């Protein structure tokens, strides 16, 4: 990679290049030492034996019995949560922009409340509530609990995303709608929302990553049979290959989420460069900001 000028240092001259080379070597040695230590301690506990890793490459049953069904559950939970949370979030987000103070206040309270509470607390509550007040069978209850917890939390985050998307649009859009005599509701449905949806697509995809990651909570705490939960039975069945199982599960998560993140960034770049739209975007970075409780510096902060 060719060095570009940055705020921190100049394009390197001969002396700086020698210094950088020295740093590279030092860092390489340190990195090699760490890698060697990891490999040595893995080998000491017999975790590097081919027999422990082979099933993932030679035995289709590992994938058929453990990984793929678990991955399917992860994807189902994440997809359901997104599909239910989005309209709910859009509704809350629009309420937060209402002209009536009490509607705005009520929606704001709901959003702040669910953003300030850990998802796990919501999942535990949902799980116990389903057990106590409904007769959903214990087999499907974890799925219901996971999706409910995720929906409650993500609807409030998405409400902020939707609000940010609408506020990111140039005010000329509202003015023009008013000028041709549209009502408030018409302005929202025909002018603002359709553009806001496009503007917030990157943030939505990026929030999907958060949802996928949070499904693992259900596996660890509620007995939902998703990807993480498949590690225990898998390693018990294939000779205590815990490290190998974790590696495979982690790689699947990284590949899935990295694909989503890359897609989100690509979308964002495309929307920013696009000539047909207003250029308003709720970016990938905005999601972290909007997920935290409290008033933020401005809804369009992450869109610079």
């Amino acid at each position, binding site marked *: 990679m060719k060095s570009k000028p940055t*705020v921190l240092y100049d394009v390197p001259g001969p002396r700086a290049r020698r210094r950088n080379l020295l740093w590279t070597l030092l860092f390489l040695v340190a990195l090699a030492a760490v890698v060697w230590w990891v490999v040595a301690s893995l080998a000491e506990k017999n975790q590097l034996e081919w027999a422990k890793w082979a099933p993932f490459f030679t035995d289709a049953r590992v994938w058929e019995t453990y990984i793929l069904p678990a991955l399917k559950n992860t994807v189902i939970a994440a997809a359901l949560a997104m599909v239910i949370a989005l309209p709910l979030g859009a509704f809350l987000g629009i309420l937060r922009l209402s002209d009536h103070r009490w509607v705005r206040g009520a929606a704001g309270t709901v959003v702040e409340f669910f953003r300030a509470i850990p998802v796990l607390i919501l999942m535990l509550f949902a799980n116990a509530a389903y057990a106590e007040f409904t007769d959903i069978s214990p087999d499907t209850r974890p799925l219901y609990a996971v999706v409910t917890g995720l929906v409650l939390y993500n609807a409030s985050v998405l409400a902020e995303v939707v609000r940010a998307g609408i506020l990111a649009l140039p005010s000329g859009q509202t003015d023009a709608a008013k000028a041709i005599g549209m009502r408030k509701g018409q302005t929202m449905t025909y002018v603002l929302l359709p553009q806001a949806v496009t503007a917030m697509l990157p943030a939505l995809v990026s929030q999907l990553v958060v949802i996928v990651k949070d499904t693992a909570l259900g596996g660890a705490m509620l007995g939902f049979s998703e990807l993480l939960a498949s590690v225990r039975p898998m390693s018990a069945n294939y000779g205590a290959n815990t490290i190998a199982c974790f590696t495979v599960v982690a790689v699947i998560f990284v590949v899935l989420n990295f694909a989503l993140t890359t897609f989100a960034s690509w979308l964002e770049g495309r929307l920013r460069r696009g000539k047909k739209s207003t250029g308003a975007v709720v970016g990938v970075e905005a999601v972290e900001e909007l997920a935290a409780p409290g008033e933020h510096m401005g809804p369009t902060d992450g869109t610079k």
Partner: protein
Amino acid sequence: MFDFLQGYDLLGAFWVTVQLTVYSAIGSLIWGTLLAAMRVSPVPLMRGFGTVYVNVVRNIPLTVIIVFTSLGLFQTLGVSLGADKFTTINFRLAVLGLTAYTSAFVCEALRSGINTVPLGQVEAARAIGLSFPQVLRIIVLPQAFRSVVGPLANVLIALTKNTTVAAAIGVAEAALLMREMIENEAQLILISVIFAAGFLCLTLPTGLFLGWVAKKVAVKR
């Protein structure tokens, strides 16, 4: 009405949550700063390492990392971090996991802070004859620190909420106590309200206060 609270150490559990937050926050601030330094360094290998670390760790669920510290690091590889009691081992493993995860986000917050300083600022500083350390000390870092308060506050709040994941490896913090109480007491709604209120008390003031600070110190552009 609150009889069922007898026999449960509610404050103790939230104190563990606070401890997890504080230790992990300190740890991830240090490791995250180092990572950020690597990501903006002129050495391509360090930059590459920082990029790979952040992209891998950010995309793995925290739950997977935390459970791995217990099942993988401790039970399989025998890493006990110098502790001999189970509770201490699990606590330290949880701090390790939370630190490894959160520092990726700290790194990104710091890096984006540095990136908000426009190149023109540095060019102007050089044009009036400031040396490199002066440029860094007087021009770049003050602006970077100011714009980083908001994002770091968000990371801190997310960390506070994420400490509940430590329940997955049996650290006796708030979420684990909540699960235990739900199982043993027939007061679901009340218990949930109490724990929700506890977390509101931890996250909302932090969010409001640091949000106010961030607004106060922000560089207007």
